[in-house]
């Protein structure tokens, strides 16, 4: 019997987003520590453009995901573990939406509009407000660290499935095993 797999599309979306989001996270940490310079302003602009792109891609991904159910979890998993996996994945989706939104709102509150690729101005929902800007900066950071923590759990779970449970959960998401 053919084992349940992710489609090539699902695999491409998963790893593409992983690469984009991890890069955004690392660039975000890095740019914050930079000394004020034209390069810093450029990196901030790139980060914001990439963040808007990630948000658009997450929306497309969600739309696609609603019509394409993933393969079922292995029957060997307990009800609680399945529930845990569902909550974890739900949190990842939530954060993929909330993080770019918090970044956009933070920028607005700090008085720096987001202009996509320096060309397309994205309207400000908030007007400049220093206290609110600082609060949203903290929010953006906390959401990101939450994402990092859940990602550690996500990777840990995949490795556990592979090494301890010896099931197909990790392998079915690997591109070289897809077909």
């Amino acid at each position, binding site marked *: 019997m053919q084992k349940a797999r992710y489609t090539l599309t699902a695999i491409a979306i998963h790893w593409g987003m992983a690469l984009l989001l991890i890069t955004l996270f690392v660039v975000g940490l890095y740019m914050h520590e930079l000394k*004020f*310079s*034209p390069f810093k*302003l*450029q990196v*901030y*602009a790139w980060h914001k453009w990439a963040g808007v792109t990630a948000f658009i891609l997450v929306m497309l991904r969600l739309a696609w995901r609603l019509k394409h159910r993933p393969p079922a979890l292995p029957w060997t998993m307990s009800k609680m573990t399945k529930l845990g996996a569902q909550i974890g994945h739900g949190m990842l989706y939530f954060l993929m939406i909330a993080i770019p939104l918090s970044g956009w709102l933070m920028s607005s509150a*700090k*008085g*720096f*509009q*987001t*202009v996509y*690729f*320096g*060309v397309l101005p994205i309207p400000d929902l908030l007007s*400049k407000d220093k206290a609110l800007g600082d609060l949203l900066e903290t929010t953006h950071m906390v959401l990101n660290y939450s994402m990092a923590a859940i990602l550690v759990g996500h990777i840990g779970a995949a490795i556990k499935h592979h090494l301890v449970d010896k099931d197909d959960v990790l392998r079915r998401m690997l591109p070289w095993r897809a077909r």
Partner: protein
Amino acid sequence: MNIKVWSSVIGGLMLAAGAQAAEYTSIQSDKSSLHFVYKQMGVPVDGSFKKFNTQLAFDPAKLANAKVDFELNLASIDAGSDEANDEVASKSWFNTKVYPKATFASTAVKQLAANRYEVSGKMTIKGHTQTITAPFTFTPQGNSAKVDGSFVLKRSEFAIGEGVWADFGTVANEIQINFHFLANASK
């Protein structure tokens, strides 16, 4: 309409005409502001200056004698963020330690239309002097007048933003300056 109302209307018109001919000699600083907009990576960012002194002699009926001297305290800048405020005080921007003030001294004022004028003069920033021309509207209101105008200043002409900042790719050359003053007529 009775005579009382008519006389107050005529009196009011005469007062207005009187205000029109008055000479304006001071700027009410708490009702005046100096804002600017610059583009950073394509993003318009607002800024302002909090402290400036103005010496004014402006009579719309005697433009040949009109004179405005403007002195701007560069340390009072708000360039949009704390980081930017520290940066613009540095040597490559305003070098505020050596050049704490920017000045403007008018050389001519001419009328463009009713209540519309144009002032030209010498702007000095960071040891560089350039001729600047700015159109403005002048709207008398009782004993004072609203002055609104704007012009574009090219930062490269005053060496504002040197070295790594000299390239316009990150911070554009054109800085839009918007001024709103409330001028008071001499009593």
